[in-house]
């Protein structure tokens, strides 16, 4: 437990002390939240404005979670490796899985803080949600899967890309590009057919749609049970692969 707590505290402080991380995880989605309300959603009829703003808020939470996993966690691992921390830890009686859990918990807390800020600002900007207990539980479940999937991708990039700046840029690029082509920034209905399929398979955009369907009442498509199963399986697969690669490349003795 001490090792999990120690890694959790260290990683969380690293995240909140990293200005780049704060910008991408909190400031950038906030900017898009404002842009959504004041630019992109202006043509939405008045009666749908509140739900559209709610949808926009959920999308920005999805983006924030994605960038936290894919960029902040990535930067955290890449920086620790670049400065030789793993060499030091490998020589200590440290259990790698406890280090992984501590890092993931730190990202969870970071995401929770970002989510709280985005929901608060979203509500102030007029976002409304269709709240039900089941809807909230489903949303939290899908959000957790999103965080696991993003963390999995973050673990993979952080473990494979050795250069710190390279790792951060790769994480940001994957997050921004996949957001753009999977309907996180834009409406699902605006996507071409091939990208719609990708949007239903990419765990973050798919979870985004499922959350919107659960508490914002509308999404570009009606999710089926198959959609839900795919989100669960693909998210957990990314996470498991991430853990395996992290253990192999950052922890295993050569």
């Amino acid at each position, binding site marked *: 437990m*001490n090792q999990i707590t120690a890694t959790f505290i260290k990683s969380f402080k690293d995240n909140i002390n990293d200005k780049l991380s704060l910008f991408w995880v909190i400031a950038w989605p906030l900017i898009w939240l404002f842009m959504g309300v004041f630019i992109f959603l202006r043509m939405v009829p008045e009666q749908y404005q509140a739900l559209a703003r709610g949808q926009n808020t959920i999308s920005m939470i999805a983006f924030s979670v994605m960038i936290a996993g894919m960029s902040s966690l990535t930067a955290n691992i890449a920086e620790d490796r670049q400065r030789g921390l793993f*060499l030091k830890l490998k020589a200590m009686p440290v259990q790698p899985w406890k280090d992984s859990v501590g890092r993931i918990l730190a990202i969870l807390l970071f995401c929770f803080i970002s989510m709280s800020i985005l929901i608060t600002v979203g509500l102030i900007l007029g976002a409304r949600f269709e709240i039900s207990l089941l809807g909230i539980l489903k949303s939290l479940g899908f959000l957790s899967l999103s965080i696991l999937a993003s963390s999995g991708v973050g673990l993979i990039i952080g473990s494979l890309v050795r250069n710190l700046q390279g790792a951060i840029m790769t994480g940001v690029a994957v997050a921004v590009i996949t957001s753009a082509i999977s309907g996180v920034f834009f409406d699902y209905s605006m996507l071409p057919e091939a990208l719609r399929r990708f949007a239903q398979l990419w765990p973050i955009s798919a979870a985004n749609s499922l959350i919107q369907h659960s508490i914002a009442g509308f999404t570009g498509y009606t999710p089926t049970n198959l959609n839900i199963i795919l989100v669960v399986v693909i998210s957990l697969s990314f996470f498991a692969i991430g853990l395996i690669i992290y253990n192999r490349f950052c922890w295993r003795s050569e």
Partner: protein
Amino acid sequence: MNAIEVRDLVKKYKDKTVLNNLNFTIREGEFYCLMGPNGSGKTTLSSIIASIRKQTSGDVRVFGKTPDKAKDLMGYIPQENFSDPHLTGRENLRYFTRMLGYTNKETGTIVEDLIKKVDLLEDADKKAGKYSGGMKKKLELATILYPGIKVLILDEPTTGLDPSFRRKFFGLIDDVKDKSTTILLITHLGSDAELASKVGLIDNGVIIAEGSPGELKNNNKFKNIINVVTSIKNDRVRDILNSFNQGDELMETEEGYKIYSDDSAEVIPKIVRIIENGGYKVIQIGSTEPSLEDVFFKLTGKQVRGVKQ
């Protein structure tokens, strides 16, 4: 009692043999230094002892245990500055202390003790990223001074630090360690190796000589090294100087040349005269006792710090 025993150790990376059937023993309480140039295998050896890498074959024991079973007995400082720049010195130490399994309550007491030991009290709440190179080394030294640690493995701990701080760093280690603490120092600096009680010179994955610094230097049959800096460096100057050299090969440094001699007082005026008769100038000349780096050069024909011959 033996603190570290290395028997028939071999480490290969694909076809390249980095450690070649290496054998040595470090006794408990000994300050042992492995000195060699970059690529000699010294860091690979220390990382196998520290349980970071695995050997291809052979046996390593730390107080009779395999390295992975003896992690709680060893404190390892890698070459890199591994402290977290985003955290304060105190937060860094709290992190490492809790990673060693100490409870929150124990951690508070231990961290304050470590901060005092390495003399970082005034700067403990500054971010490590704002620390000077010397302060970072003190902080990292603190991460291996926990109760129960019997072997300190220091991989080039003073690289990049100025000579005066290097002395202070080893003075600090001497102050804070127990008498029974064993130290394994990895370095390419002869001045650091002089501080050890026993030195192993390593080249191409083999220990080529071992003994106290005094023994290694006494085995070198020449009494003096003459350092000469001339106005230019060319083959002619080299040939002139080589005629005075009693060693196997004239050693070329960044600034000039080193000549092995038995009687520097007699030879120095002759060198100055002949060089100046040849139309060149002697900028600087003086004699010193042979260093461990000179001993290494005599044995291998290579310079430890990688300056071309």
